[in-house]
């Protein structure tokens, strides 16, 4: 059986030493959490795909500049490292 996730809540209106509670998440909170996790994962995958494509395009661009006769030092001066 999977343990129920919990949240740590600190009520600052209470005296020190009496503030912290560890509260199990409700079913609604768990469902919302899981739904947001799916969205976050899809956004992460999309972000990494964009970064990978950008790196591929950048390398292709550098290769094209080399083919045109620029030196690596000239390319770096133009584009950065």
């Amino acid at each position: 059986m999977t343990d129920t996730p919990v949240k740590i809540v600190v009520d600052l209106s209470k005296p020190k030493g009496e503030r912290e509670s560890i509260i199990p998440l409700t079913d609604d909170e768990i469902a919302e959490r899981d739904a947001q996790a799916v969205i976050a994962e899809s956004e992460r995958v999309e972000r990494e795909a964009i970064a990978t494509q950008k790196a591929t395009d950048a390398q292709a661009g550098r290769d094209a500049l080399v083919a045109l006769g620029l030196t690596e030092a000239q390319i770096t001066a133009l584009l950065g490292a």
Partner: protein
Amino acid sequence: MGYQLIEHIEVGSGGAASMEFTGIPQDGVHLVLKLSLRNTDNNPDSAQVSLNSDTGDNYPQIQLLGDGSSASLQGLTMGFIRLAIPVSTYTANTFGSAELYISNYTSTSNKSMSGDSVGENNATLGRLKIDAFSYTTSSAITSIQVALFGDNYAQYSTASLYKITAD
């Protein structure tokens, strides 16, 4: 001007899906939230911070995000503030640091905020994030939620809330 620790939370051995401060005292000028976080799973790679339990699209933001190979800039509006954190596949026993600065948290105007965070990793796939946020509200900030969607903050993750006072 004073810089005072209000309270500190540390996650125990069972992990935690969220850390929350409620009943925030209203006798300060600004708030500073300092975090040291790690996810026990590989997803997500960011903490989700909300204010006053508000998860509506009330957080317009500009984020500058960099990893080991590129940087990007993006403006968007979301239902929470995202701060980068390391995930379970990142360098072991390593937590990411994050800070959220909330100015004039008791005012009746929209709240202006800034954040910086890092998904610490001794490899190319580490992330650094610098953000400018706004919270669209006329209410004072009375609570802060630091949630992780999908899994748990690892043991020894911490959240510390400070207030900056005028005297």
